């Protein structure tokens, strides 16, 4: 594709919608990702996306509206993961593994008993960013507003709870309330992100920008800002490369994120060697 053709593509409403939704979901996932990665809940995005896959498969099999089924189910699953990891005194990774295995099995069962691996299921697994609607833009904008507002208003609490839950509890701070807030926002981001990236790739939007930014950032605040910046940059570059070379959008975005991670990792290693 020529550059003129590329710029002409940017005038199409569906491309602009995809860019807007993608940028907003990337922003949400990367900011929440900082808290989740540092709390060692990195794989919660993966676990919740499999719960999303199961609920969307059941919705497709029963002919129900997909988002109306997926959003509450994933929300409940995120609370269940939190509850299991805290009350059963098992690690977050075990709670995620239990939820995701059960959900994946249910999703496969629903797919097999329903219409099989049709285009709906293919869309759930791999996403369809260019098929986003104006409704998706509005929901993504609302979600981004919620996440940014939560970080602006409760930044100090989120920092404290991420750094030391015990110290926050000892000060009398209601830790479960903030954990529920992060869980709920993560669940909604995963549901929206699944439409964009697919259930197989959405967790990378949560994990990779935070891990990349960690190599550069000094302090929590700069990590949040850098993670958001890296995520939006990699999303934009990934979608441009996918349009120019006609590649799958989700995969291009993920591989751009992986490239950024490798680049910062190498730069970090070289800097350490030079010292």
């Amino acid at each position, binding site marked *: 594709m020529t550059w003129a053709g590329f710029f002409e593509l940017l005038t199409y409403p569906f491309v602009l919608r995809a860019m807007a939704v993608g940028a907003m979901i990337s922003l949400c996932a990367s900011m929440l990702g900082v808290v989740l990665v540092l709390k060692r809940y990195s794989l919660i995005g993966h676990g919740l996306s499999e719960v999303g896959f199961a609920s969307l498969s059941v919705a497709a099999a029963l002919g129900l509206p997909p988002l109306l089924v997926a959003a509450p189910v994933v929300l409940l699953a995120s609370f269940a993961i939190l509850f299991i990891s805290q009350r059963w005194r098992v690690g977050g990774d075990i709670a995620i593994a239990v939820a995701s295995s059960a959900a994946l099995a249910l999703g496969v069962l629903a797919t097999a008993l329903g219409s099989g691996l049709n285009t709906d299921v293919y869309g759930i697994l791999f996403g369809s960013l260019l098929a986003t609607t104006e409704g998706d833009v509005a929901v993504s904008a609302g979600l981004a507003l919620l996440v940014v507002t939560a970080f602006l208003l409760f930044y100090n*609490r989120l920092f404290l709870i991420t750094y030391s839950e015990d110290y926050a509890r000892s*000060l009398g*701070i209601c830790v479960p309330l903030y954990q529920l807030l992060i869980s709920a926002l993560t669940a909604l981001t995963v549901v929206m992100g699944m439409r964009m990236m697919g259930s197989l790739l959405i967790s990378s939007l949560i994990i990779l920008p935070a891990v990349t930014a960690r190599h550069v950032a000094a302090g929590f605040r700069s990590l949040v800002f850098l993670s958001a910046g890296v995520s939006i940059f990699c999303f934009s570059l990934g979608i441009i490369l996918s349009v120019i070379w006609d590649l799958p959008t989700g995969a291009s975005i993920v591989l751009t994120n992986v490239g950024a991670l490798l680049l910062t990792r190498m730069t970090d290693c070289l800097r350490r060697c030079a010292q």
Partner: protein
Amino acid sequence: MTALKLENVTIRYGGTVVVDGVSLAVEEGELLCIAGANGSGKSSLLRGILGLVPLAGGRVERGRAAFVPQSEDADRDFPATVWEVVLTGTQCPGWRLPLYSRSGRKAAARAIADFGLTSLARHEVGTLSGGQMRRVLLARALSGHTGLLLLDEPCTGLDPAIRRLLYGLLGRRCHEEGTAVLMVTHNLNEVRAFAGEEALSGRVAFMEHGRLSVAGPLRSYGEEQA
């Protein structure tokens, strides 16, 4: 006035009783030292007072407290600066927006300066030595100006000069602000010596198999031993 009151506090881990019917009271401006062998339930008692472990029985009455844990539960590679960590000590519970006030920032800066951490304020905590990290945790606890301080072996890894500084600061807090201090320690002789210098009124209690016995005033501890 009483800053901390425990009535028949019991803590169980599974079927094992680790704190067995402990009752005590710590008055404003008082220092209570708890000593005892490893595994006698000292740290569990502190965690029970703070609500970090559920009580199997009994009651805790206390106001706002600050805590220095035996070991921090945070990861060493967490991207937090000394300033960010110490500032968290000034957070208050409640429904107000958790924004740091000017007085909170001043208190944090003062605590950082008190523990000789000013030059390290922008450093990440993961780059600090064990002793420096201990000073960060102490600065965090003292920045909050709470009525009750719970210190779990606060002198571990500190050099003598910083230990002396800590006792001086605790003495000032007890005398000037009426702060009550509950300290778990293995070094009663040192606490007694410094408390004497700071003219602190203190008591000693011993824990054994989860039971607490209050032995008496701190100043007479050495004489009893002799």
